[in-house]
């Protein structure tokens, strides 16, 4: 674990400077200001240099796969290779094939040692499935896995479904990473309903004392705009309108997606790149009625003249 914490060193112990540089060839961590060598003989976990093709890169990696929170055993367990070859690359005698087949099977089973592990393995697989369906980046998946593990440690899963907690972890992770998805979107990707996800999410936030900011309409603008094929001009206009609306206190207590949707609608009309209310409603996952209601409030209070 010694070398692991090299990653965590952010401050020079001598002059408290944060200007540190890593010398990969010497394997040292050096303070740029005072010259102190903070760490030496650092293990380079990168691939061997001079790689000409991706396959080669894999072969020349000097260490195994990095640890990841997205697997129940942190990716540290080993497999019996599916290829019937021994360590030197020779093919295994066909007499032993079936024996190896059975060993492989049992090794896979024994990797998940107890019920908690099995639960975690299932949940992480579910998390990964949902995240893939929502096309979420790796950082969000990792945050979701961390959330789920925290929930397991605090024994919050008891009496709740794995799917529900996994979906709630993902929802929380999206918000922590500043890329909120609506409960409906998560609900569609998961096997549970939005109500259950919302309930579990609120419970988790309370029990884990997570600090998550309330979502605002501004978080959804760029995603909805690209969903509607609107350009940067409309997006900029929409941000401008949101700011005005927030100054006039028109947003509090209103659903952020509804506000975002109607603001995009107004901005698209103002910029002459009109989208119909139905199109906007579909992308934002709200009803047309919501858009109309918010729209009325907004144009009245912001003194916007619109020709329809």
């Amino acid at each position, binding site marked *: 674990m010694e070398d692991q914490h090299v990653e965590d060193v952010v401050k020079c112990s001598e002059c408290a400077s944060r200007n540190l540089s890593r010398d990969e060839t010497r394997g040292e961590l050096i303070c740029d200001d005072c010259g102190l060598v903070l760490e030496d003989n650092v293990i380079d976990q990168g691939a061997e240099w001079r790689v000409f093709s991706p396959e080669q890169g894999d072969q020349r990696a000097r260490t195994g796969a990095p640890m990841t929170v997205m697997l129940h055993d942190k990716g540290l367990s080993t497999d019996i290779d599916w290829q019937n070859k021994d360590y030197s690359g020779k093919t295994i005698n066909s007499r032993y094939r079936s024996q190896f087949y059975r060993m492989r099977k049992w090794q896979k089973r024994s990797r998940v040692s107890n019920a908690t592990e099995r639960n975690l393995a299932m949940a992480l697989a579910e998390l990964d499935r949902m995240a893939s369906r929502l096309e979420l980046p790796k950082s969000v998946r990792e945050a979701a896995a961390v959330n789920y593990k925290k929930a397991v440690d605090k024994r919050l899963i008891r009496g709740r479904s794995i799917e529900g907690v996994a979906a709630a972890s993902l929802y929380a992770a999206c918000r922590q990473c500043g890329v909120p998805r*609506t*409960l409906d979107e998560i609900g569609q990707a998961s096997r549970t309903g939005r109500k259950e996800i*919302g309930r579990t999410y*609120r419970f988790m*936030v*309370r029990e884990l*004392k997570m*600090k998550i*900011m*309330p*979502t*605002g309409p501004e978080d959804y603008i760029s995603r909805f705009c690209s969903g509607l094929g609107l350009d940067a001009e409309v997006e900029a206009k929409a941000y401008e309108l949101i700011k005005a609306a927030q100054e006039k*206190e028109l*947003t*509090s*207590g*209103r*659903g*952020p*997606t509804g506000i975002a949707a109607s603001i995009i609608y107004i901005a698209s009309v103002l910029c002459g790149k009109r989208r119909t209310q139905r199109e906007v409603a579909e992308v934002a996952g709200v009803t047309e009625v919501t858009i109309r209601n918010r729209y009325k409030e907004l144009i009245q209070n912001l003194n916007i003249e619109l020709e329809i």
Partner: protein
Amino acid sequence: MTTDEERLTVVNVVASTRVAEELDLPDIAIQLNCEYEPEQFPGVVYRVVDPKLAILMFRSGRAVCTGGKDEQNIHTGIELMIGDLRAAGITTWDIEDVEIEVQNMVATYALHYPEDYDGTDKFTGEPLADAPRKLNLNNLTFHLPFDKVEYEPEQFPGLIYRLDYPKVVCLIFGSGKMVITGARHKSEILEAVEIIKDELADLL
């Protein structure tokens, strides 16, 4: 200026009690002509028109009274019920022996009252009382202790504030109106209102 107590509207009081050792629900349902659907709900629903109450009676002799506006309501309701039961020849305890315990009280309160703002605006000359006043719930989440508030506009338009003492839950809305629930007594609600008004003093 009206006091907090006058402004507070208690909208629901729920109380529990026990009126007999045992109740024969099917018999009661027939004799008093009450709602009784054992497949849906295990209790008999006894409705009082004035004051408008619903009393749920269970086989164990316990009863839950909901919909009261104050404790007096509940008492009259239960007295009426016991009277009816006795008239139908069902044995119950004496009214003096029946203990009524308030379980929950729900009240509404508004943080802004137009009549609190007298005078006119310095710039526009319009009376201040007419100016719309709204609470920014987003800012409120920073003002109040974060582990006790919950504001999810996607799920519920109000901000949920759980007080430790008095142990009540407040729903605060953007309009400045509040719902206070979970109290056992009116004094707890008043205390909660005081605390919240103090905490939001510089926002109002």
